[in-house]
């Protein structure tokens, strides 16, 4: 069994060696002519504004999470739609159940004010907790 792992070892060594080789080669061959425009951060062609290490609003986080869910939903919907004719009723019902579950999730974030930029004031339940805490 020792010999089985030799392949892994060879793979690791070759991997490291190849990387070192390519970096060294590019170092040797590349023309080095930096200017300020080349050294700027790449932001899809836009002029970068300010440093990247600033405090982001925490609301971005919730928005991003909600976005990811619906992003994944679309990823599932595409292949399903392509072969929809072949799959028949079962797949249709299955996808509707999936969408229904996500819809409940959307209703949840909506009702809790998580997709509004300015979050509404805490509801009566939270106020009651505060009263209890005092």
């Amino acid at each position, binding site marked *: *069994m020792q010999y*089985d792992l030799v392949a892994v070892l060879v793979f690791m060594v070759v991997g490291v060696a190849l990387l070192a080789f390519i970096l060294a080669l590019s170092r040797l061959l590349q023309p080095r002519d930096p200017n300020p425009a080349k050294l700027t951060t790449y932001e899809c062609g836009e002029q970068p504004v300010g440093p990247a290490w600033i405090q982001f609003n925490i609301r971005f986080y919730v928005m991003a999470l909600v976005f990811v869910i619906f992003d994944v939903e679309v990823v599932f919907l595409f292949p399903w739609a392509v072969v929809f004719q072949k799959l028949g009723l*079962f797949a249709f019902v299955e996808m509707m159940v999936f969408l*229904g*579950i996500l819809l*409940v999730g959307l*209703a*949840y974030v909506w*009702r809790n004010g998580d997709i509004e930029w300015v979050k509404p004031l*805490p*509801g*009566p*339940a*939270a106020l*009651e*907790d505060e009263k*209890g*805490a005092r």
Partner: protein
Amino acid sequence: MTGYAQLDLAASVGQILPELVATAAFLLAVVVDLVSRRRKEAVCAVVLAGCIAGLVLSLAQLKAGQSLIFAGMAAADPLAAILKAVVFLATGLVALFSLGSPEIRMSGRGEYYSLLLVVAVGACFMASAMNFVMVYLATELVTVTSCILVAHAKDDRRASEAALKYILFGAAASGVMIYGISLLYGATGTLSLTGVSRALVSGQVPGLVAVLGVVFVLAGIGYKIAAVPFHFWCPDVYEGAPTPITAFLSIVPEAAGFGLLIRVYMLGFGERMGQGWAAAASLDWPSLLAVVSALTMTLGNLGALHQTNLKRLMAYSSIAHAGYILMGFVALSKTGLNAMIIYIIVYLFMNLGVFAVLIGLSRRLASDQIASFRGLGGRAKFPAFAMTVFLFSLTGIPPLAGFTGKFYLFAAVIDAKIYWLAIVGALNSVVSLYYYVRIIKAMYIEAGETEGGPIQLPALYTALLVALVVPTVVLGIFWGPLAGMTEASLRFLF
């Protein structure tokens, strides 16, 4: 593994009715929570209905035979059915416990009740997983959701600490587990438990890979059942979590974890030998588990000796009980597995009972410290009596249910001729008597403050206590039907 009929996709749906109903109840609970902002009892009612429906449907599956569903991802068999029933029963009881608990906040109460059902569904899939992908997914579903429940009191530092510890330990344990799974997949080319078993038996898997895979998978399962050395999260999480959630964690993930252990180790890493089971290939995991079992009960019991906080004490006690239950698995026999299932069911009643007393009295007790139980025997007669019954049952004193469970466990171990483990178990039971009786002593012998006068338990908790005391006593005297049912549920394996 013979005897499993493969069902197609449409037929498979019919085999997960308990999970489907629970999921539907969860979605309904979320909607009800959104519609009614103030009356969260409605959400609890939906969750309870889901649990009752799940319980009934699971019990209906007991006699349904055995089949592989969803292309071999999960199994529908009597073992899964009985564990699902345990999960739904415990979840329903915990939902009831929570109704009057001051620790459950108003904000997030809807989420609290509905997430109980999600953990239950995850636990059901843990108990029926037949493929390592399913094993991992179900375990994660339970871990992540339980974590949110532990952190229910957002502004409580201890709860946040507990949740953080729980998730970090969980992440480490499941990371190790999935690494083990990847090793097994690399060596066998399959993720199905029975496929891995076949590959191990045929001897095509290099010894080191097999050993690492089998041991690493134990990390994930050991974390769920709080077995040594994966138990470190247990005391802190039990102490920091809201008490109903502590009760929940002591039963639901544990029962599902033991189901997973039976499935993964027997069907995945074992092979059928005549009437019984043996470890596949040259791996001696039964001996490893025997050592884990002995360590778990010993460390659990020794850890409990010096606890002054009841919730921490119950954490160590549940570690110790995980060790006892593991003892039944080590025997790898029908009697051993039967003893495990019986003990899990008995443990449900007596352990939830202790927590029911704690939650019911929590408005009147100064703290979770054992000291605040002083003099309770005179002030709250029925709760103190119930507590005494549960604690004696946890010790394993006849004629209570705990004795029945322990009797079956020890019988199985002795039957398998693992005498040293039986001796360790017996010694541990003696040790456990000390710390359980300390609570009883505080209640009846030590003088406490009496100025509060008699304590009236809310009617809900009186009813719950009666509902838990009765099985704890009855199963100690008349356990035939229960043992018959559990034995029938395991017949397909032997």
